[in-house]
């Protein structure tokens, strides 16, 4: 362990990094957990005008605590609107939503996601929930982000099932499939690094590595050949002020960031 790693844990780091990517004055559809924490942190730091939406219909709540479900009453607590799922999905389809956060059991180098099954779909070894709203949000929001623990079984060369579109098979594929132009994966934030996507190849590439992380560690945790952006920098660690807000205001009961 380096000295930095003692002052915050991996989840705290990922949440702080994710929060900084959310532009002020933008809209984001989040789920529960780390994405919601990142949005709440952003609202209290760099993006006070961030508008948070939940796929079940909640819009702009003053979140009193972490929602347990993306449809629970926290998601519209003192909200700006309590609407419907079509309302949220149609705002995305209309182009009004800038960001979304997704997860999955597998991700490939084009940012495609699997949350449907492990093994053959016809006879799955593990049946998972399926798309939920993930396919919709990744199809329709402008920029898709991921916060995910990274290991070679999760960052794979080939998905068992492509639930949710990243860049599909590469350049031009989203447009050819009929997905709205200009959309796609944006950042993938893991416990080791932040990945972006190469503007030409649309393949996942390391943009910065967290303090103490080496290229070997990243490669060892990636089941495909990761790209490297021209200038791989070190991730800026959480500021004390960010950590304080995260721990005291966003997740005081440490549901997400844990006890470590």
């Amino acid at each position, binding site marked *: 362990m380096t000295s930095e790693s003692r002052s915050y844990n991996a989840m705290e780091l990922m949440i702080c990094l994710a929060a900084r990517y959310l532009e002020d004055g933008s809209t984001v559809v989040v*789920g*529960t*957990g780390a994405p919601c924490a990142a949005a709440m942190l952003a609202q209290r730091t760099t993006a006070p005008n961030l508008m948070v939406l939940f*796929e*079940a*219909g*909640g819009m702009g709540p003053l979140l*009193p*605590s972490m929602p*347990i*479900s*993306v*449809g*629970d*009453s*926290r*998601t*519209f*607590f003192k909200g700006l609107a*309590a*609407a*419907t*799922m*079509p309302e949220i*999905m149609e705002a995305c*389809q209309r182009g009004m939503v800038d960001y979304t956060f997704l997860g999955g059991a597998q991700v490939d180098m084009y940012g*495609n996601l699997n949350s*449907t099954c492990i093994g053959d*779909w016809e*006879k*799955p*070894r*593990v*049946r*998972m*929930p*399926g*798309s*939920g*709203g*993930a*396919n*919709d949000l990744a*199809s*329709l929001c402008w920029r898709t982000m991921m916060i995910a623990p990274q290991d070679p079984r999760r960052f794979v060369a080939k998905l068992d*099932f*492509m*639930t*949710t*579109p990243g860049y*599909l098979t590469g350049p031009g*594929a*989203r447009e*050819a*499939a*009929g*997905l*709205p132009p200009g959309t796609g994966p944006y950042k993938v934030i893991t416990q080791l690094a932040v990945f972006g996507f190469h503007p030409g190849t649309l393949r996942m590439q390391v943009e910065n590595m967290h303090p103490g992380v080496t290229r070997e560690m990243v490669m060892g945790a990636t089941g495909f050949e990761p790209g490297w952006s021209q200038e791989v920098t070190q991730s800026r660690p959480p500021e004390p002020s960010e950590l304080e807000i995260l721990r005291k205001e966003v997740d005081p*009961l440490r549901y997400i960031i844990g006890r470590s």
Partner: protein
Amino acid sequence: MGLPGSSRLFMPPDVNAAREFFRSKSRRMTGKLTTAREAVARMVHDGDYLAVGGFGTNRIPTALLHEVVRQGRKRLGLSGHTATHDCQILAAGDCFDRCDVAYVVGLEARGLSRNARRIFEEGRVAVTEWSNAALAWRYRAAAMGVPFLPARVMLGTDTARRSAAREITCPFTGIRLVALPALFPDVALIHVHRADVYGNCQIDGILVSDLDVARAARRVIVSAERIIAGDEIRREPARTVIPYFCVDAVVEVPYGGYPGNTAYEYFSDEDHLRAWLKAEEDPAAFAEFVRSYIFETPDFPAYLERCGGLRRLQELRWMEHFPGRGEGLA
């Protein structure tokens, strides 16, 4: 791009047949108050295709779902539109053998239901894949009375390939679109805050897809936190989100969405949901759990008693009304 999807279209979008059915549906404002047992006995049949209102653990018609299990309904079709605890209950009763999947077998951040997973993994359920928005728009197409709606989701993915969607080209712009077939369920089970005896319903907070589900389904059973006078409905007509002529039966079930969250009423009982997930780790223990909580529990009040009764429900009311502080009480 692999479309049409290769899976089975469980409910074909036959709008003309639906029109004939809706033509025959009563428009009389007659009293429809009954019990959960009676409503399910009369209106949910083996083999029916079922849609469930709310959102998994939020404003779900738990009392009606328990009744479906208790009465031993089999071979149902299920619309898996964020089906979490609802899916878990129906899986506990082994009630369904086909499913339009957008989200099943999970309880969001709480984890996966082992028992529900097992049923899918053992191949006992025929599956067609969709997304949440796709199912929402399939309900809406039915509610609109059109055989499909175009959308820009699922395109290019295995979700589409394993769906029963088709692809079309926009006649104006030439862009590719997915065509989502209207979904007319046989029965919808919906939990609401208030209804009158005729079935005019009010819901507080988010509506998820319930407006469309109530209009799309051939038969609708509503459970309500409370029955209110028809005059109350007429006092604020803009609050009527489901009109009586969509509704076939009304059941008064206070706390009817427990152990889920019903907004402005009570928060979800996370302890009980955890107990479900825990019990599912051992099939024998789970059979006993289901026997004790559903099969041998005569009705919903008895279930609520077993789960801690009014004392626990009062705690959940506090959690709902004083969030943040409320969590500290649990």
